[in-house]
């Protein structure tokens, strides 16, 4: 079963992951993804009736929790040192439509 992604689907995907793509990039992505999806389609042939999905590889590990004690604070200077733009102690971004 051939799986050929359409340009529309690539557009939709690139919007969902917020990655802008040039026409050239889109063409490459379309070709690569279609090929890989084609390959991955073999999974549909595998009989998984009554087989539960594997949500955790460590089957016995459950209910991992910690005490409610504050700590491990990230100092603001360290946080902002990696920031592309900051102002007044806040991360600075272009204006956002206010609701």
């Amino acid at each position: 079963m051939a799986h050929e992604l359409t340009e529309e689907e690539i557009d939709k995907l690139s919007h969902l992951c917020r990655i802008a793509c040039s026409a050239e990039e889109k063409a490459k992505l379309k070709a690569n993804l279609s090929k890989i999806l084609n390959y991955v389609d073999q999974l549909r042939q595998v009989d998984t009736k009554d087989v539960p999905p594997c949500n955790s590889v460590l089957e016995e590990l459950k209910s991992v929790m910690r005490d409610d004690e504050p700590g491990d604070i990230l100092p603001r200077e360290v946080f902002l040192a990696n920031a592309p733009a900051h102002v007044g102690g806040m991360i600075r971004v272009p204006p956002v439509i206010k609701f």
Partner: protein
Amino acid sequence: MTLKHSIWEPVIGLEIHVQLNTKSKLFSRAPNRFGDEPNINIGVVCTGQPGSLPVLNKEAVRKAVQFGCAIDAEIARVSKFDRKSYFYPDSPRNFQITQYDQPIIRGGRVETLVEGEMKSFAIHHAHLEDDTGMLKHFTSFAGVDYNRAGVPLVEVVSEPCMHSAKEAAAYAMAIKSIMEYIGASDCNMEEGSLRVDCNISVRKRGEGTLRNKIEIKNMNSFHNMEMAIESEIARQIAIYEKDDSVQLTKGTYRFDLEKKETVLMRMKEEADDYRYFPEPDLVPLVLTHEYIEHIRNTLPELPTQRLKRYVEELGLSDYAAGLLINDKPLCDYFEEGLNFCKNARNLCNWITVEFVGRLKEKGLTPMSAGIPARHVAKLVELIEQGTITGKIAKLVADDMVADVERDPLQIVQANPDYQPVSDLSAIEALVDEVLKENPQSIADFKSGKTKAYAFLVGQVMKLCKGKADPALVNKILTEKLQ
């Protein structure tokens, strides 16, 4: 507007987000505190640093289970967390960790009075999830503060079972009350620790299916919420009355306080694809029967239980009890006072009417003013014991408000004008003088006009500036009138 007999039936569901008052965040150890400088209460997890991993806060789980028990819900023995993907600057990872299909709390109900009638509202489920940071808007840029990012939220999703703004408000207040009573949240709508979103649709009464609904967000008080719902119901009815076949366009609205109507914020073009899938950095949450039962058995007194106790055991009126129950801080203040005073009704009155009244103008409450509850209780006791009259007590209350730490007994002892006159001969002298001055009243009394008696008592009290023990005055006056 009453819609009871109208052909239109509003259908309302509420999603209430409650911030839990844990010391640290849900998956991050950073402090859970409101109001500090931006980006002070942050850690590597709640700022989405690469290489950071979530670790679940056991106290948040406990509070969620407490809430579930308080609403008689089923506590899931096994629940899990999921990633919900969407992009926004206030999201540190561009996915939220929430519970999609296996929430910790399923079902449940709250019972509450709605305009005098007891009603029960069903809850669909409640789940844990982490809050986002905050976006602050300026003209040419926006600033992001992650102090709030990662704070634990319990999202309570009701069934679409409310049919009026009053029902919705009552339900929301009941949820708030329960959260306050189990001590799980500050429930402060202004600060954002309690947030309510409504989903509203309207249909013809008896219509089997639901029509399209819209969502109203960002209502910052119960009063505004009621107004918003009322106005939206009216808007939808008006649309259908013009053309019943209209398919309402789904969208998100906010309530405009000036226009007093709901205003469109954004359309829902297509269903958001959040691509939910199980959070691989967390393991399933498995709760034992013992753990759940222990929490259920150690629940503190819940609002409906306390209301019952106030009315049935303490003899408070429905109204007075309701007033206290819905204001937890004030109610706790009253509970504190009860330790020092036997007359619950009087204590209630003195707190909710006399002291609240005096402090309202100052924008204070008895708690915020710093008047110890036991002082108010003592004041009531002083009246009960006959040490002072009710009238004097009012003056003492004024003094207590002016100087919040003063003990009422000391106030009374320090002021000669407050000393009750219990000297029999002194009172007798007063009574004699009043009787001498008011022969007409005596005659009126003797001819059966009871009002004259009250007048005479009043005159005696006036003479002594209210200091005489009313019981003694009555005794002596009655004797003298024989």
